């Protein structure tokens, strides 16, 4: 029992991060049918924004060395603000890297490359401005909570449980919005068929902007939250999740929002099942699992069979 519970905790702990990362990632796919390679960079930005808003100072190596905001916000206020900042960047990105392609009806493959270019710019800009060193949100931020929970002998860090809970909350909020509101329904219509949606009087362009804004917000908040659990490991912080995040997305079903969370948890659990002697093969196990799922069920666990979108 204890071993099983520990296994579950181990899986949820890793899975929570994947799920958070994939939420915003999948939203853009569901609407545009393209993968936004700059998502990892926006996630990174969210982490840095949070760090600065809680009063963190820039290290010694960037152009902005030593800079610090004159005020320090509490974490719970800084986080949504960082999300808004990330959303603003995502909107700019949509305007520069995605909209011109859509206006011309270009091959969706191109968006992979333009967003890749945007990601390269963002990452190197971060390095230029604030350096490559790691930053961190003080461990004391959650001071009143115990650092780890122990249930029936199995242990897990509190912050990971919190990440998972927040991922669940965001998922619920997103689902309620998509299924329960006018704009959410309009978003669904656009993702099914943008041209018909346009004919029905839905402003597709605007809906896509909304999707990007929300996706950026989710990425930013995810970045800040993960930054609470681990250090912000330099400009490549979020890029490192790009590959696993993609795997999570596909496993859950591309474009399926609950699928993103489910995919994250399943990959986390798959990795948790690898015995210690084979710990080196952990990533091969998760990708092997993904590969098998693709062969058996190409649309992913919760995805619908889809036309040939890229």
């Amino acid at each position: 029992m204890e071993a099983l519970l520990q296994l579950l905790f181990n899986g949820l702990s890793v899975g929570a991060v994947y799920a958070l990362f994939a939420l915003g990632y999948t939203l853009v796919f569901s609407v545009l049918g393209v993968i936004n390679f700059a998502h990892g960079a926006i996630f990174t930005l969210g982490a840095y924004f949070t760090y600065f808003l809680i009063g963190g100072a820039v290290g010694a190596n960037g152009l902005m060395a030593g800079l610090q905001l004159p005020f320090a916000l509490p974490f719970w206020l800084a986080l949504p603000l960082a999300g808004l900042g990330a959303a603003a960047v995502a909107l700019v990105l949509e305007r520069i890297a995605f909209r011109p392609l859509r206006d011309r009806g270009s091959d969706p493959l191109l968006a992979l490359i333009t967003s890749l270019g945007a990601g390269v710019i963002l990452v190197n800009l971060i390095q230029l401005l604030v350096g490559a060193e790691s930053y961190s949100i003080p461990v004391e931020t959650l001071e009143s909570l115990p650092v780890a929970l122990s249930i029936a002998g199995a242990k897990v860090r509190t912050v990971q449980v919190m990440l998972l809970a927040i991922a669940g909350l965001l998922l619920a909020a997103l689902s309620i919005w998509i299924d329960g509101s006018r704009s959410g329904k309009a978003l669904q219509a656009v993702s099914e068929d943008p041209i018909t949606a346009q004919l029905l009087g839905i402003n597709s362009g605007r809906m896509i902007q909304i999707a990007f804004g929300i996706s950026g917000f989710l990425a930013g908040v995810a970045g800040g939250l993960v930054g609470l659990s681990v250090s912000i490991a330099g400009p490549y912080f979020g890029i490192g999740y790009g590959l696993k995040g993609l795997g999570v997305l596909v496993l859950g079903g591309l474009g399926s929002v609950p699928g993103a969370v489910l995919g994250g948890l399943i990959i986390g659990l798959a990795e948790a099942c690898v015995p210690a002697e084979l710990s080196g093969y952990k990533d091969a196990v998760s990708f092997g699992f993904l590969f098998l799922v693709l062969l058996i069920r190409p649309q992913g666990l919760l995805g619908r069979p889809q036309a040939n979108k890229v």
Partner: protein
Amino acid sequence: MVALTGNASLIGQDQRIGLELAESEFGGSTPALSVRLEDGGSDEQTATTAFRRLLQQPVVALIGPSLSQQAFAVNPIADPAGVPVLGASNTAIGIPQIGPFVSRISAPVSKVAPLSIQAAKRLNPKLERVAVFFAQDDAYSTSETKIFQKSIQGLGLKLVTVQRTSTADIDFQKPIADTLQTRPDLIVISALPNDGGNLVRQLREMGYAGLIAAGNGMNSPNIYSVCQRYCDGLLIAQAYSPEAKTAVNRRFVQLYQKQRGGTAPPQFTAQAYAAMQVIHEALTRLDRQESLRSQSRNQALATMALPELRRALNTILLQGTYDTPLGEIRFTPEGEVIQKDFYVARVKMDAKGKTGRFALLPNPSPATP
């Protein structure tokens, strides 16, 4: 040539400061020496092009590259070209053996690593069960862990588990939970500052209270911001200690702090600085020697043909003994560094858990050359 972009840019960033400090310190005196910095990226391809670019210029010697894997790719190009290459951060076995023009001032892993295990044993004589973690995708860490494991067994300790992690990992819940079940008294980590620092923090948060010894890869003040107050008590094997009380090191620390504020210089910065110092001192001696022979003053080096200058520099460089911030160093004829002092430090964090220092442990065993 150092990594200014890509995921090794944290190393390159530290090295750049060391090179620039050394340039301002030694650049003015004769023979004048200046640094031509190129970004070697974090991959072999970028490093190759950057090296070739530098080889086409009138450089007397090369310092770099940042990573051992890059050294295996680029040093075989510089060696036949007859340009001395001095590695400032390559620690893998086999690098000085690439050729006569390849040498390094970064001590190989085999020298530094065992010291921290011995120190742990002194701190806790009842120590028995040891768990090992290493980052399997990092060349340094994979070599270091072999040395660690050998010396753990050499001391008669019991190796209870070996966990492979990756430098890209951030959540260590699973390997930690597995490890804690083996009830270790000491956990030994070979990793880089970021992943290693996160691992230390998570070990403590998950309730591990025993000793932790980290390898030389984590000997960087960059860990303070990663594991924060949980860094406290961490044992670290050092090829450079900012607390070493030599005049040269005090001067270096002072230069560093004048430019960067109160923090202590990282090992990569000290090693890059020392590499420049070694080249500068070798050139000075060469200058003196040539001046005596040709009896012209201060012009001796300028009149030498570049290939000849490079050859002479390489020869004289390997013969000298240098008093650097790393302590006294010299070279084997092959180009391997012989470093006199290694250290084991224990991290002491300040009350706020924001920054700390590497407090030297008493009686570090002198390394046998």
